[in-house]
Protein backbone atom coordinates (compact mmCIF):
# COMPACT_ATOMS: atom_id res chain seq x y z
CA UNK A 1 0.00 0.00 0.00
CA UNK A 2 1.24 3.37 -0.86
CA UNK A 3 -0.09 6.12 1.37
CA UNK A 4 2.87 8.37 0.86
CA UNK A 5 1.67 9.66 -2.48
CA UNK A 6 -1.77 10.55 -1.26
CA UNK A 7 -0.66 12.71 1.65
CA UNK A 8 1.73 14.67 -0.47
CA UNK A 9 -0.40 17.72 -1.33
CA UNK A 10 0.16 19.70 1.86
CA UNK A 11 -2.83 21.70 3.02
CA UNK A 12 -1.94 25.24 4.01
CA UNK A 13 -4.29 27.61 5.76
CA UNK A 14 -4.91 30.57 3.46
CA UNK A 15 -3.73 33.66 5.31
CA UNK A 16 -4.57 36.21 2.65
CA UNK A 17 -7.84 37.16 4.35
CA UNK A 18 -6.33 37.21 7.83
CA UNK A 19 -6.03 41.03 7.98
CA UNK A 20 -9.67 41.36 6.95
CA UNK A 21 -10.81 39.03 9.69
CA UNK A 22 -8.74 40.81 12.28
CA UNK A 23 -10.00 44.15 11.03
CA UNK A 24 -13.54 42.97 11.52
CA UNK A 25 -12.78 41.86 15.06
CA UNK A 26 -11.02 45.14 15.72
CA UNK A 27 -13.96 47.19 14.48
CA UNK A 28 -16.32 45.11 16.61
CA UNK A 29 -14.33 45.77 19.77
CA UNK A 30 -13.85 49.44 18.91
CA UNK A 31 -17.58 49.90 18.56
CA UNK A 32 -18.46 47.91 21.66
CA UNK A 33 -15.85 49.41 23.98
CA UNK A 34 -17.10 52.03 26.37
CA UNK A 35 -14.38 53.23 28.66
CA UNK A 36 -15.11 53.15 32.33
CA UNK A 37 -15.64 56.75 33.27
CA UNK A 38 -15.94 56.74 37.01
CA UNK A 39 -14.42 54.98 39.92
CA UNK A 40 -17.35 55.42 42.29
CA UNK A 41 -17.49 54.45 45.93
CA UNK A 42 -16.84 51.02 47.40
CA UNK A 43 -20.25 49.45 47.84
CA UNK A 44 -21.54 45.94 48.44
CA UNK A 45 -24.75 45.68 46.45
CA UNK A 46 -27.44 43.21 47.51
CA UNK A 47 -27.94 39.93 45.68
CA UNK A 48 -31.20 39.24 43.86
CA UNK A 49 -32.53 36.47 41.64
CA UNK A 50 -34.46 38.77 39.31
CA UNK A 51 -31.33 40.73 38.40
CA UNK A 52 -31.47 41.83 34.78
CA UNK A 53 -28.84 43.21 32.48
CA UNK A 54 -29.10 46.82 31.38
CA UNK A 55 -29.27 46.99 27.62
CA UNK A 56 -26.59 49.54 26.98
CA UNK A 57 -23.99 51.53 28.85
CA UNK A 58 -24.57 54.64 26.82
CA UNK A 59 -27.88 55.49 28.43
CA UNK A 60 -26.74 54.81 31.96
CA UNK A 61 -25.78 57.31 34.63
CA UNK A 62 -24.48 56.17 37.96
CA UNK A 63 -25.17 57.13 41.51
CA UNK A 64 -23.33 55.59 44.43
CA UNK A 65 -24.39 55.50 48.05
CA UNK A 66 -21.95 53.91 50.47
CA UNK A 67 -22.21 52.61 54.02
CA UNK A 68 -21.64 56.09 55.45
CA UNK A 69 -24.70 57.26 53.45
CA UNK A 70 -22.48 59.44 51.26
CA UNK A 71 -23.79 60.07 47.75
CA UNK A 72 -21.43 60.17 44.80
CA UNK A 73 -22.26 61.21 41.24
CA UNK A 74 -19.50 61.36 38.61
CA UNK A 75 -16.85 60.81 41.31
CA UNK A 76 -17.92 63.83 43.30
CA UNK A 77 -19.44 63.58 46.74
CA UNK A 78 -22.69 65.50 46.58
CA UNK A 79 -25.41 66.43 49.01
CA UNK A 80 -29.04 65.48 48.65
CA UNK A 81 -29.88 68.94 47.30
CA UNK A 82 -27.31 68.65 44.48
CA UNK A 83 -28.94 65.57 42.97
CA UNK A 84 -31.88 67.27 41.31
CA UNK A 85 -29.94 69.84 39.19
CA UNK A 86 -27.30 67.26 38.17
CA UNK A 87 -29.87 64.68 37.14
CA UNK A 88 -32.07 67.25 35.39
CA UNK A 89 -29.02 68.23 33.34
CA UNK A 90 -28.35 64.59 32.47
CA UNK A 91 -31.98 64.09 31.53
CA UNK A 92 -31.94 67.10 29.21
CA UNK A 93 -28.95 65.60 27.40
CA UNK A 94 -30.41 62.13 27.09
CA UNK A 95 -34.09 61.50 27.57
CA UNK A 96 -33.70 57.74 27.70
CA UNK A 97 -31.32 57.86 30.64
CA UNK A 98 -31.43 55.13 33.25
CA UNK A 99 -29.99 55.84 36.68
CA UNK A 100 -28.13 52.84 37.98
CA UNK A 101 -28.17 53.19 41.74
CA UNK A 102 -25.29 51.40 43.35
CA UNK A 103 -26.44 51.43 46.92
CA UNK A 104 -24.74 49.55 49.74
CA UNK A 105 -26.89 46.89 51.38
CA UNK A 106 -26.52 48.50 54.79
CA UNK A 107 -27.96 51.85 53.74
CA UNK A 108 -31.26 52.76 55.36
CA UNK A 109 -34.39 53.10 53.25
CA UNK A 110 -34.96 56.66 54.45
CA UNK A 111 -31.89 57.75 52.54
CA UNK A 112 -32.92 55.77 49.46
CA UNK A 113 -36.38 57.30 49.51
CA UNK A 114 -34.97 60.83 49.81
CA UNK A 115 -32.79 60.18 46.75
CA UNK A 116 -35.71 58.74 44.81
CA UNK A 117 -37.78 61.81 45.60
CA UNK A 118 -35.01 63.98 44.15
CA UNK A 119 -34.86 61.79 41.06
CA UNK A 120 -38.59 62.24 40.63
CA UNK A 121 -38.08 66.01 40.84
CA UNK A 122 -35.46 65.76 38.09
CA UNK A 123 -37.86 63.61 36.03
CA UNK A 124 -35.31 60.80 35.78
CA UNK A 125 -37.88 58.13 36.48
CA UNK A 126 -36.12 55.13 35.01
CA UNK A 127 -33.87 53.67 37.65
CA UNK A 128 -32.18 50.38 38.28
CA UNK A 129 -31.20 49.05 41.67
CA UNK A 130 -27.75 47.63 41.06
CA UNK A 131 -27.70 44.05 42.34
CA UNK A 132 -25.60 40.94 42.02
CA UNK A 133 -26.79 37.62 40.68
CA UNK A 134 -27.81 35.26 43.43
Amino acid sequence: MDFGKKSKPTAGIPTASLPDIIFMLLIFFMVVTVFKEFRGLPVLTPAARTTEKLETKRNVAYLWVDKQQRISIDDKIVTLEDIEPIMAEKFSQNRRIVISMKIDRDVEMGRVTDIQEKLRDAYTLRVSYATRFK
Partner: protein
Amino acid sequence: MSSMIKRRVRGGADIPTGSLPDIVFMLLIFFLVTTTIDMDKGIPMVLPDRGGEFKVSPENISNVLINSAGQVLIDDEPAEISQIRDVIRGKVESRGLDTDGKPKLIVSIKTERSTSYNDYIQVLDEVKRAGATKISIAEPEK
Protein backbone atom coordinates in the same frame (compact mmCIF):
# COMPACT_ATOMS: atom_id res chain seq x y z
CA MET B 1 -4.49 62.53 -22.74
CA SER B 2 -5.91 59.58 -20.97
CA SER B 3 -2.91 57.45 -21.74
CA MET B 4 -0.66 60.04 -20.13
CA ILE B 5 -2.53 59.88 -16.85
CA LYS B 6 -2.36 56.13 -16.87
CA ARG B 7 1.35 56.13 -17.21
CA ARG B 8 1.78 58.47 -14.29
CA VAL B 9 -0.31 56.36 -12.02
CA ARG B 10 1.64 53.26 -12.90
CA GLY B 11 4.81 54.75 -11.56
CA GLY B 12 3.25 55.42 -8.12
CA ALA B 13 4.96 54.21 -4.95
CA ASP B 14 3.34 51.35 -3.03
CA ILE B 15 2.64 51.55 0.69
CA PRO B 16 4.18 48.47 2.28
CA THR B 17 1.30 46.44 3.67
CA GLY B 18 3.32 43.54 4.95
CA SER B 19 3.16 44.68 8.56
CA LEU B 20 -0.51 45.65 8.41
CA PRO B 21 -1.77 42.52 10.17
CA ASP B 22 0.69 43.14 13.00
CA ILE B 23 -0.48 46.70 13.51
CA VAL B 24 -4.12 45.68 13.43
CA PHE B 25 -3.38 42.82 15.82
CA MET B 26 -1.85 45.26 18.26
CA LEU B 27 -4.92 47.51 18.10
CA LEU B 28 -7.15 44.50 18.48
CA ILE B 29 -5.32 43.36 21.60
CA PHE B 30 -5.57 46.87 23.05
CA PHE B 31 -9.33 46.93 22.62
CA LEU B 32 -9.67 43.36 23.85
CA VAL B 33 -7.88 44.30 27.05
CA THR B 34 -9.71 47.57 27.66
CA THR B 35 -13.20 46.25 26.94
CA THR B 36 -15.10 45.67 30.13
CA ILE B 37 -17.32 42.70 29.67
CA ASP B 38 -19.10 43.13 32.99
CA MET B 39 -22.47 44.56 32.09
CA ASP B 40 -24.44 46.81 34.36
CA LYS B 41 -27.05 44.74 36.05
CA GLY B 42 -29.81 45.38 38.48
CA ILE B 43 -33.53 45.40 39.10
CA PRO B 44 -35.21 47.91 36.79
CA MET B 45 -37.85 50.15 38.26
CA VAL B 46 -39.82 53.12 37.03
CA LEU B 47 -40.47 55.78 39.63
CA PRO B 48 -43.95 57.28 39.71
CA ASP B 49 -44.54 60.51 37.87
CA ARG B 50 -45.20 63.58 40.01
CA GLY B 51 -48.89 64.34 40.34
CA GLY B 52 -49.84 61.30 38.33
CA GLU B 53 -52.19 59.95 40.94
CA PHE B 54 -55.01 57.75 39.87
CA LYS B 55 -57.54 55.72 41.74
CA VAL B 56 -57.44 51.95 41.84
CA SER B 57 -59.93 49.70 43.51
CA PRO B 58 -58.60 48.70 46.94
CA GLU B 59 -59.19 44.98 46.38
CA ASN B 60 -56.47 44.98 43.71
CA ILE B 61 -53.86 46.39 46.04
CA SER B 62 -51.72 44.25 48.25
CA ASN B 63 -49.79 46.07 50.94
CA VAL B 64 -46.38 44.76 51.89
CA LEU B 65 -44.83 46.37 54.92
CA ILE B 66 -41.24 45.91 56.00
CA ASN B 67 -40.17 47.14 59.42
CA SER B 68 -36.73 48.11 60.61
CA ALA B 69 -36.05 44.60 61.89
CA GLY B 70 -36.70 43.15 58.44
CA GLN B 71 -40.02 41.60 59.41
CA VAL B 72 -42.62 41.50 56.66
CA LEU B 73 -46.36 42.03 56.84
CA ILE B 74 -48.48 41.19 53.79
CA ASP B 75 -52.01 42.57 54.06
CA ASP B 76 -51.70 42.55 57.87
CA GLU B 77 -50.49 38.94 57.91
CA PRO B 78 -46.92 38.34 59.03
CA ALA B 79 -44.77 36.40 56.56
CA GLU B 80 -41.23 35.13 56.28
CA ILE B 81 -39.10 36.23 53.33
CA SER B 82 -39.25 32.68 51.95
CA GLN B 83 -43.08 32.69 52.09
CA ILE B 84 -43.57 35.96 50.22
CA ARG B 85 -43.37 34.36 46.81
CA ASP B 86 -46.14 31.83 47.44
CA VAL B 87 -48.39 34.35 49.18
CA ILE B 88 -48.04 36.96 46.44
CA ARG B 89 -48.40 34.37 43.69
CA GLY B 90 -51.68 33.25 45.22
CA LYS B 91 -52.91 36.82 45.29
CA VAL B 92 -51.77 37.49 41.72
CA GLU B 93 -53.62 34.43 40.45
CA SER B 94 -56.81 35.16 42.38
CA ARG B 95 -57.05 38.69 40.90
CA GLY B 96 -56.55 37.51 37.33
CA LEU B 97 -55.23 39.48 34.38
CA ASP B 98 -55.93 43.04 33.39
CA THR B 99 -56.91 44.13 29.88
CA ASP B 100 -53.22 44.68 29.04
CA GLY B 101 -52.41 41.06 29.81
CA LYS B 102 -50.57 41.88 33.00
CA PRO B 103 -51.72 40.81 36.46
CA LYS B 104 -54.32 43.09 37.99
CA LEU B 105 -52.70 43.00 41.39
CA ILE B 106 -50.69 46.02 42.47
CA VAL B 107 -48.15 45.30 45.14
CA SER B 108 -47.40 48.31 47.29
CA ILE B 109 -44.14 48.00 49.17
CA LYS B 110 -43.84 50.23 52.18
CA THR B 111 -40.83 50.48 54.43
CA GLU B 112 -39.79 52.35 57.51
CA ARG B 113 -37.07 54.94 57.24
CA SER B 114 -34.74 52.73 59.24
CA THR B 115 -35.42 49.57 57.19
CA SER B 116 -32.23 48.27 55.59
CA TYR B 117 -31.94 48.54 51.82
CA ASN B 118 -30.97 44.89 51.64
CA ASP B 119 -34.29 43.80 53.21
CA TYR B 120 -36.16 45.97 50.75
CA ILE B 121 -34.34 44.45 47.76
CA GLN B 122 -34.90 40.91 49.07
CA VAL B 123 -38.65 41.56 49.34
CA LEU B 124 -38.77 43.29 45.95
CA ASP B 125 -36.92 40.32 44.46
CA GLU B 126 -39.41 37.82 45.91
CA VAL B 127 -42.39 39.90 44.77
CA LYS B 128 -40.98 40.03 41.25
CA ARG B 129 -40.36 36.30 41.28
CA ALA B 130 -43.99 35.77 42.23
CA GLY B 131 -44.97 37.26 38.89
CA ALA B 132 -46.24 40.63 40.07
CA THR B 133 -45.46 43.31 37.49
CA LYS B 134 -47.22 46.29 39.00
CA ILE B 135 -45.13 47.26 41.97
CA SER B 136 -45.46 50.56 43.70
CA ILE B 137 -43.10 51.99 46.25
CA ALA B 138 -44.90 53.83 48.99
CA GLU B 139 -43.20 56.61 50.86
CA PRO B 140 -42.13 55.60 54.34
CA GLU B 141 -43.80 57.17 57.30
CA LYS B 142 -41.70 59.77 59.02
